[in-house]
């Protein structure tokens, strides 16, 4: 399950998608590359990787973090709470 928040959600045009990446997608960076190729909206949302944050099963992940067996992948901008 992919979850999108804030302007990533708006740019992609959905708050979630159920997708199964191919086995070649091993890390967070691989996943973002694979997602960006899905549609022009995905490409636009993920164009600036410095403005993208990813959580795997609700824990922050880095570009080189393996996706492993994560069931819930969330993609969002840097947080602005408080």
């Amino acid at each position, binding site marked *: 399950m992919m979850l999108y928040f804030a302007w990533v959600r708006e740019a992609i045009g959905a708050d979630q998608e159920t997708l199964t990446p191919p086995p070649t997608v091993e890390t967070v960076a691989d996943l973002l590359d694979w997602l960006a190729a899905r549609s022009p909206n995905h490409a636009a949302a993920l164009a600036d990787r410095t403005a993208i944050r990813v*959580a795997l099963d*609700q824990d922050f992940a880095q570009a080189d973090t393996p996706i492993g067996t994560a069931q819930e992948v969330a993609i*969002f*901008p840097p947080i602005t*709470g*408080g």
Partner: protein
Amino acid sequence: MQVRVQPEPFDTAAELAALSANRSDVGAIASFTGLVRADDGLTALTLEHYPGMTERQLAAIAAKAEARWPVLAGTVIHRHGRLVPGDAIVLVAIASPHRAAAFEACSFLMDWLKTKAPFWKAEEGPWGTRWVRAKATDDQAAQRW
């Protein structure tokens, strides 16, 4: 420590009073309340969050504070939804035997919350609606701990 994520307003005075109710070991209560400011004609702020991860991250931050300072009781409340200038967004309140620990734990919680709790603010005003950009100074503030 109590952690709540809610759209409803909170009563700061009641929350502070609850921290020392029916006990005599609390010597200091420090708190921070964050409010919506009407900068540049801002008319409303809408906070989106990631249900599940928000509570999980706040609980993790609270556990870190409890491991580091003598926290007798504490409350963290973060609102979501649409808020207007003057509305309270966030409350962090810490009860401790002494003031230094209360001040420090409170400040630590706010700095970490700003970089770890998945909330996003959209601002309404003369410009329409726009997403707030993250500040590098927030990351720096969290790094000092």
